[in-house]
């Protein structure tokens, strides 16, 4: 009996060795290892690291989008590298060096196009998602003899990309609905030095943060003909121009049913605004200058990390009472947080402790810890099915 079972076990192990087990990718993701130019491939069911892919170049400030089948991760590197990583084989599928210096990218609504926003030369380049062959080149406006840097690139419904021009203060829409030659709509004088942008989860509003002045620029994509308007006039560094030790990120902006939670610029506060009127509702005092302010997918909690030198801490705000309910110390230089799609766990990277910690968001218990070299951004495949991510 025992011997028969051992034989069965041996046979099934042998079968595993030759035929990789079939698996889906819906619980997978990647973690950027910025110092080594590599990514770790992870899965959130067993909360394990499955593999590592290297050779991705300079990954400072790298970001990732996913193919609609959730098999491929597109990694955008600082050095202009665009790499298509196969999550199932843990290998580089394709890679191009598309510019000298880039900052992020987006995938089109239909999954056919990858757009990359570039600092040098300033503009947006668009590639075929399957082959990474060039499809379109959108040079930015010039100032002096230079082209403006492009920031805050997102995908929008109806096969559009939206982005901001840092040096020339513009928002552009590139509409690819009619084919590979985009129709460009330009909005000028939207404010000084837009430094990042976000699109609301429903894909309707594009909002650019302004570094050079207070307030935010809002574009209603249902009514682009109405132009860009200013909201939250007092949002920003204020008259004294508070120094900012890490630019707050807009992508993570938390949106609950009635409120949006924003990192205040330069202050140790999180701003709560009414989502419908865009008027401030409350200010919540927090541990440091907030960088990412991210809502758990059900909207009940908002998790906040902070800029140097107070960057060893994460705080959790209860969105019902607007009170801080927990203060965690995941490690030195907390850079990013990513929730699983239904929010039962959150993965947090601590760069200078070379550690990623997985927390249970209900009990705050540590579910897993992984040693990874200089981890930064964490991206799960569920992003494939969300507008703007």
């Amino acid at each position, binding site marked *: 009996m025992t011997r028969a079972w051992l034989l069965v076990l041996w046979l099934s192990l042998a079968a595993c060795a030759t035929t990789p087990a079939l698996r889906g990718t819906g619980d997978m993701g990647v973690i950027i290892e*910025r*110092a080594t130019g590599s990514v770790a491939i992870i899965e959130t069911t067993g909360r394990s690291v499955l593999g590592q892919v290297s050779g991705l170049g*300079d*990954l*400072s*400030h790298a970001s990732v989008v996913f193919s609609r089948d959730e098999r491929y991760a597109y990694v955008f590197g*600082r*050095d202009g590298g665009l790499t298509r990583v196969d999550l199932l084989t843990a290998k580089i599928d394709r890679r191009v060096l598309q510019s000298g*210096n880039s*900052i992020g990218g987006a995938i089109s609504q239909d999954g056919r196009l990858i757009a990359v926003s570039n*600092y*040098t030369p300033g503009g947006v380049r668009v590639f075929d998602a399957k082959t990474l062959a060039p499809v379109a080149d959108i040079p930015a406006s010039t100032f002096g003899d230079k082209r403006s*840097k492009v*920031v805050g690139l997102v995908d929008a419904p109806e096969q559009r990309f939206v982005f901001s021009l*840092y040096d020339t203060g513009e928002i552009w829409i590139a509409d690819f609905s009619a084919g590979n030659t985009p129709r460009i709509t330009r909005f000028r004088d939207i404010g000084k*030095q837009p*430094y990042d942008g976000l699109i609301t989860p429903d894909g309707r509003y594009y909002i650019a943060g302004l*570094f*050079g002045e207070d307030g935010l620029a809002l574009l209603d994509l249902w009514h682009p003909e109405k132009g860009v308007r200013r909201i939250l006039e007092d949002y920003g560094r204020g008259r004294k*121009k508070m*120094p*900012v*030790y*890490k*630019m707050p990120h807009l992508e993570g902006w938390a949106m609950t049913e009635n409120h949006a939670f924003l990192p205040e610029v330069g202050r140790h506060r999180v701003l709560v605004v009414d989502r419908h009127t865009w008027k401030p509702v409350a200010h919540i005092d927090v541990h440091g200058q907030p960088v990412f302010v991210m809502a758990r997918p059900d909207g009940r909690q908002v998790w906040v990390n902070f800029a*140097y*030198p107070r960057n060893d801490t994460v705080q959790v705000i209860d969105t019902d009472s607007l009170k801080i309910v927990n203060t965690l110390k995941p490690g030195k*230089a907390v850079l990013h947080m990513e929730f699983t799609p239904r929010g039962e766990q959150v993965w947090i990277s601590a*760069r*200078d402790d070379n550690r990623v910690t997985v927390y249970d968001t209900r009990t705050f218990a540590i579910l897993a810890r992984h040693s990874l070299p*200089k981890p930064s951004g964490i991206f799960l495949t569920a992003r494939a099915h969300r507008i703007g991510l």
Partner: protein
Amino acid sequence: MVRFLAGIAGILLTGVTLAIASPSPERQKELRNLLIQDCGSCHGMTLKGGLGPPLVPEALAGKSPEFLRRTIVEGRPGTPMPPWGGLLSDADIDWLVKILLDGEAAP
């Protein structure tokens, strides 16, 4: 000896009249990490530039140590460069300026 002379040269160049002790080896390690990782968020981890300008020696050629020192201490109004004077000591900043100009900063 070479390091000692370079240190003297650094002090003379930055116009500091009082000798400031070099950061300890552990502090130098922290500062190098800060430069590559945190300054690198804007200037690129290879210091070849990003939202902020490149900090490689060719890009800094012709800039005086005093100018770099003041930029770090006071920041650059009108740009995202914040003042680091309250967070870093004079010795920290002098050492950063030195390794930037000597081309010893990039990984």
